[in-house]
């Protein structure tokens, strides 16, 4: 009874929250459009950022601190995910599919996905695209390969996996620190080199993001023998 009353109270509170939110939205929408200081600043400094796409400029130049912390969060998530997985899960034979259609499609899709990831990475400087989209595509290619049972030795805990996980973060941090050691601010790019450095950082980020997402995908399934010893009663 108390449980039901508590749930009804929580539901009413959520409803109240939604109504307040809608009211705030209505209020915000009705406000007169003011001078957008941020957009004006952004368009004034865009030519100096080294890229011509404003979103990429914000992500990797004006607010690159956010992106640095973001890849840090991703690395931590990937490490925790891997540390929770059993090594045997990486070789889970139940995950392998002998479907000939999947194998045939894979032969077509894998090069295409990798090519598309590279193009997205390159396109990010001038139009929508960038490291995260490219990393997501690389991870998708990895998931497809994993489902088809391709040998992926680099996903075993070892030097390659560790290097791949921290590559993006360490390249980013190194460039940021070099700026600070050179007498500029932390994360400030040397003038004239911003475009090239952003591309280097983005390439590292793409590889690492793809690796982290794939590692998290791989660490999710639990090998059947784990059911036998530590699993719950059916």
């Amino acid at each position, binding site marked *: 009874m108390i449980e039901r009353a508590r749930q009804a109270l*929580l539901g009413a509170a*959520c409803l109240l929250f939604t109504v307040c939110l809608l009211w705030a939205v209505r209020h915000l929408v009705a406000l007169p459009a003011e001078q*957008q200081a941020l957009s004006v600043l952004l368009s004034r400094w865009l030519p100096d950022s080294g890229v011509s796409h404003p979103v990429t400029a914000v992500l990797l130049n004006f*607010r690159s601190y956010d992106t640095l912390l973001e890849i840090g969060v991703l690395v931590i998530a990937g490490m925790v995910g891997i540390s929770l997985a059993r090594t045997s899960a990486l070789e889970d034979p139940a995950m392998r599919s002998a479907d000939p259609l999947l194998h045939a499609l894979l032969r077509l899709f894998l090069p295409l996905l990798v090519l598309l990831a590279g193009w997205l990475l390159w396109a990010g400087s001038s139009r929508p695209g960038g490291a*995260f989209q490219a990393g997501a595509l690389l991870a998708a290619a990895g998931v497809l390969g994993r489902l088809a049972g391709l040998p992926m030795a680099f996903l075993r805990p070892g030097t390659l996996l560790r290097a791949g996980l921290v590559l993006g973060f360490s390249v980013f941090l190194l460039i940021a620190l070099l700026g600070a050691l050179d007498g500029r601010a932390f994360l400030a790019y040397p003038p004239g080199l911003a475009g090239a450095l952003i591309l280097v950082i983005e390439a590292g980020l793409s590889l690492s993001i793809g690796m982290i*997402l794939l590692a998290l995908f791989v660490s999710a399934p639990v090998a059947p023998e784990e059911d036998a010893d530590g699993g*719950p009663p059916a």
Partner: protein
Amino acid sequence: MTSALLYVLAGALLCGGGLAGCLLVRHLLRRLLAFNLLGSGVFLLLVGLPAHRHGSDPVTHALVLTGIVVAVAATALALVLIRRYFHLTGRVSLPTGRQEDR
């Protein structure tokens, strides 16, 4: 009524629904889904409001892009944790403390 305003309204509703799901649903997977709904609602609000008022704003776009990537990683990590929790305890929801329903 622009399409951006529609996104904003949908975002507000998603926020409310997601919050209700987080608080009311006990199953961990559903709670994770509700949490993602809440996050998507916030993303819609962040992108939709500037788009409705003065065209798309690259600053909030970058903010939301960062948010999406972190949300994906956090969701994957939560799935791994829930999976592990299920295999260790056999439960799909956290104990409430008042009632031991096992």
